[in-house]
């Protein structure tokens, strides 16, 4: 697997604060890669270094095989970090035209196509001063995609969007990876969204990489079958050491391949099963474990 982003011992200090602390990270080409971490974990600092906005205090970073700042390599990357802003006197179409000129691709870019792709066709000729945060996000994404880059970095792309907008953005991100063959690097605080969209994730905490891997591998660890049964006591008795109470339900510590047999056995023993679903160690749980962040009591670990 070739890496699109490679960092070695990447360190950035602001006074006494170490925003990045010797980060070693290799992001493979292809798919959607999530970068997670609580506030202050170093995500934004990492992106700012990769975009050449700031210089690292120590260590090195490469983008598309070239050093950060190598314009030829950087031109193969698009980005939208934080909520983008644009000159308010420009329309959405003019913003894209301006960016196309800046990127030296004005003659080859299909602006109406990108406006349509992010759902801004109707607002194309409206001045951006009247745009909502969600519309700014969409325009920022379109601007990042204009040059059809091989790699795109999106920092909180759904911030400020309404639920349909979030769904559209999620579909767009997946389509960029699946249909356009782009490598998408995504930072988001919405862990469920990341779990749904990303193929791999890296979790940062206090400037260090604390966990990295394919989402499917990470979430399959500790996966259990959650059964809403009556009576639960009888089910627990039958499951023995592999069973545990979870409120009114029962958690069965069994492999996926054993699931049907377990259900058959419970039904055979006269136990009514109202619901059965797999609950894993979802990204949220991993996130809270790895970062030591305090989890809100109402947080639901969906499977």
């Amino acid at each position: 697997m070739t890496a699109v982003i490679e960092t070695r011992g990447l360190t950035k200090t602001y006074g006494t604060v170490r925003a990045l602390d010797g980060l070693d990270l290799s992001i493979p080409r292809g798919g959607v890669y999530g970068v997670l971490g609580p506030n202050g974990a170093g995500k934004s600092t990492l992106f700012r270094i990769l975009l050449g906005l700031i210089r690292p205090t120590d260590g090195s970073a490469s983008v598309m095989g070239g050093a950060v700042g190598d314009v030829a390599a950087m031109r193969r990357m698009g980005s939208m970090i934080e909520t983008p802003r644009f000159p308010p006197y420009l329309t959405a179409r003019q913003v894209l035209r301006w960016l196309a000129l800046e990127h030296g691709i004005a003659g080859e870019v299909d602006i109406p196509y990108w406006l349509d792709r992010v759902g801004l066709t109707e607002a194309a000729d409206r001045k951006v001063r009247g745009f909502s945060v969600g519309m700014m996000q969409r325009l920022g994404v379109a601007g990042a995609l204009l040059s059809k880059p091989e790699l795109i970095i999106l920092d909180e792309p759904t911030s400020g969007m309404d639920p349909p907008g979030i769904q559209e953005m999620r579909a767009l991100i997946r389509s960029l990876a699946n249909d356009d063959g782009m490598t998408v690097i995504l930072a988001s605080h919405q862990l469920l969204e990341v779990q749904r969209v990303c193929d791999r994730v890296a979790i940062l905490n206090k400037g260090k990489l604390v966990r990295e891997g394919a989402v499917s591998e990470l979430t399959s660890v500790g996966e259990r079958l959650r059964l809403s049964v009556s009576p639960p006591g009888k089910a627990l008795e039958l499951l023995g050491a592999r069973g545990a109470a979870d409120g009114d339900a029962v958690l069965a510590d069994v492999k996926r391949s054993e699931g049907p047999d377990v259900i058959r056995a419970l039904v055979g023993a006269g136990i009514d099963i109202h619901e059965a679903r797999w609950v894993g160690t979802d990204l949220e749980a991993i996130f809270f474990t790895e970062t030591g962040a305090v989890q809100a009591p109402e947080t639901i670990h969906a499977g």
Partner: protein
Amino acid sequence: MLVDAIRAEGFRLSKNRTALFWSVVFVPIITLVIGTITQFVMKANEAKLLADSDAPPGLKMMMQRGGELDLAQGLVEAAGNLAGPMVLLFVLIGAATLYAGDYRWETWRLISARNSRSNLLLGKLAVVAQLALAAMLFMLVAAVIENFIRASIFDRTIVFGATGEAFGQFAGLFALSWLRILQFTMMGMLAAAVTRSLLAALFVPLVLGVAQFFTPQMLGPMGFTPDAWLSILVNPGAAMDVIKAAVSGGEAAAGLADGEVLKAWVSLGLWTLLPLAGALAWFKRQDLSKE
């Protein structure tokens, strides 16, 4: 590439009607309006002014009835005055918008990864140069219209005595005015890069320009004559006047001291190149995540 930066900045400026109006159109309009009103006031008070022995000879010449009015000479005079305080001030508005705009709108992060920082800043400078050029051309158009109005009011015939000398003077004074405007806005570029502030990009050159205007009054009592190195080095406006006199020739040039023109070129050069070098050096190392 530099050409990408220039085209993009030019496009963005072309959509900023407010900046374009104040920087390019406003001063020529005001100059034309005030100039025209002045002509009519002079016409209304013609008899009184001509009879007044204290009235300046230049004023009486302007009111001369009949004869020819040389448009070429009018353009040469206008070219020498293109970098007047009003033009400097109002071109600075557009220049400051260009130099500080990407800090103000937090747009550096959208463009800085795909071009070199030198190109991005030099692209802005090139567009400011075009902006200054546009403002100067509008001023010249205003000067031509004003000459036609004067000819009409005072019954004079417009002629165009385009001699080689007049053309040379026009080209020299025009280029000099252009350089002076760019030099003046260059402090705005440095101030924008260092402070990330539009207000600083506007006020630093203004305050400095006002301070420089008063340097002769400060340095004179200290024994520095107007043609001393220090007097010219600290005041690029005075340097501009020295070079302008040299280009205009005649009595103005004859009054210049030995080496004064060289000192003036050094002053104008330093005030142009040092802020540019400073802004480039600063911008190349700047943290652009804090906009």
